[in-house]
């Protein structure tokens, strides 16, 4: 990772969030070694853009960072403790994967409410409606998820980010996927807010985050191919 980019992305924070550290990480999918020797740190107030060709293991790395999968070798730690053992990690990690985790037969608000309840965030209706408004979904908040377009689903999934009040670590898999210009702007505003609070962001995207996106440190997975 280019050090100057990381430094420019870092902001001064008071209640410092711990650092996510991937140390000498290797990941295997089936018989194929996706990557090896990956060392990556995401500190408080820092945003890292994970790039790499298709199939290079961006999503796999994000799942390792989230603690959903176990690495082939190396480890992922949060404040020095393995993420699969760190009990605080569950409350500071916000993982939004490729799948939107919305239920087809629930309304947008109900789907969001379930996720907010599950993760112990504010789940009263005004908060939920406020969050949906932030991502431009106010008019569709009572629509069934199965009637939404792909971009609207992505917006509804990302509305979870607008419920965050304290600095947290966001692990976002292709957050800009299927979003229009307004949607991208809304996501960028949320990213800026989290970074300003002292939160941190690790996101994957096959395109460079465009104008309006926060300063991101770039991390290219291609040189680590196994």
């Amino acid at each position: 990772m280019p050090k100057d980019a990381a430094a420019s992305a870092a902001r001064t924070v008071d209640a410092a969030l711990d650092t996510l550290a991937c140390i000498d990480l290797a990941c295997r999918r089936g018989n194929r070694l996706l990557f090896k020797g990956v060392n990556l740190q995401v500190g408080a107030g820092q945003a890292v853009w994970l790039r790499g060709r298709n199939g290079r293991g961006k999503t796999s790395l994000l799942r390792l960072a989230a603690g959903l999968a176990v690495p082939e070798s190396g480890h992922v730690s949060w404040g020095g403790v393995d993420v699969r053992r760190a009990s605080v990690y569950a409350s500071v990690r916000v993982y939004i994967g490729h799948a939107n985790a919305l239920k087809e037969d629930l309304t947008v608000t109900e789907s969001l409410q379930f996720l907010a309840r599950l993760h112990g965030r504010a789940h009263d209706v005004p908060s939920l409606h406020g969050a949906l408004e932030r991502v431009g979904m106010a008019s569709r908040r009572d629509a069934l998820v199965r009637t939404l377009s792909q971009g609207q689903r992505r917006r509804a999934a990302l509305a979870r980010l607008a419920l965050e009040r304290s600095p947290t670590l966001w692990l976002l898999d292709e957050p800009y996927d299927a979003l229009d210009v307004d949607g991208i702007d809304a996501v960028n505003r949320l990213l800026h807010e989290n970074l300003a609070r002292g939160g941190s962001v690790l996101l994957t995207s096959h395109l460079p985050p465009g104008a309006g996106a926060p300063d991101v440190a770039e991390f290219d997975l291609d040189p680590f191919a196994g």
Partner: protein
Amino acid sequence: MSAAFAAVYTRDIRLALRRRVEALLPVVFFVVAVSLFPVGVGPEPQTLRVIAAGVVWVCALLASMLSVANLYALDHSDGSLEQMLLSGHPPTVIAAAKAAAHWTITGAPLVLAAPVIGLLLDMSPAALATLVAALLLGTPVLSLLGGVGAALTLGLRSAGVLLILLILPLTIPALIFGSGAVGAVDSGISASGHFSLLGALLIFTALIAPLATAVALRIALE
């Protein structure tokens, strides 16, 4: 912890209410399957009374197994399962909530439909009451075991058949003591022994199955 249980349980019930026809399929299957027996075996009340308890139990078992195949599949494919496991709540609580919701949606209607279906097979009132009580203790066992099977076969092709092959052998004790209770009452002895064993089975399964389901879910997501 109880917040996660309530969140998952109420969501699953709400989802079932949104898809009422689908949710009613197991109980419809149960009623139709049991009603085939008088047609196939012959309408002699004597014969029907003898086989009634076994027929009702086997059909309840199959109805439970049919509906349990999708217990985790949808949550797995839409990413909800990942979110549940990342929420920091013990996965055993999630597994218990899913099994409880499955019983409410499938098991409870089976218990309610059993007396009507029993009348069709000419069961005596005492036998009917025993049947309902036995199903009340036995169907949660089926939901709990089904949860283990659904988690173990998550993401596999032909998961439905594999699940039935895996879980049906484990349900045999519930089947034996459940239909045995009705047989005991029919032959004039107390069914309390059968009920004790069914109760013990339920407690044992309730302690072990969520743990096994949690481990299987973790493996499935890796």
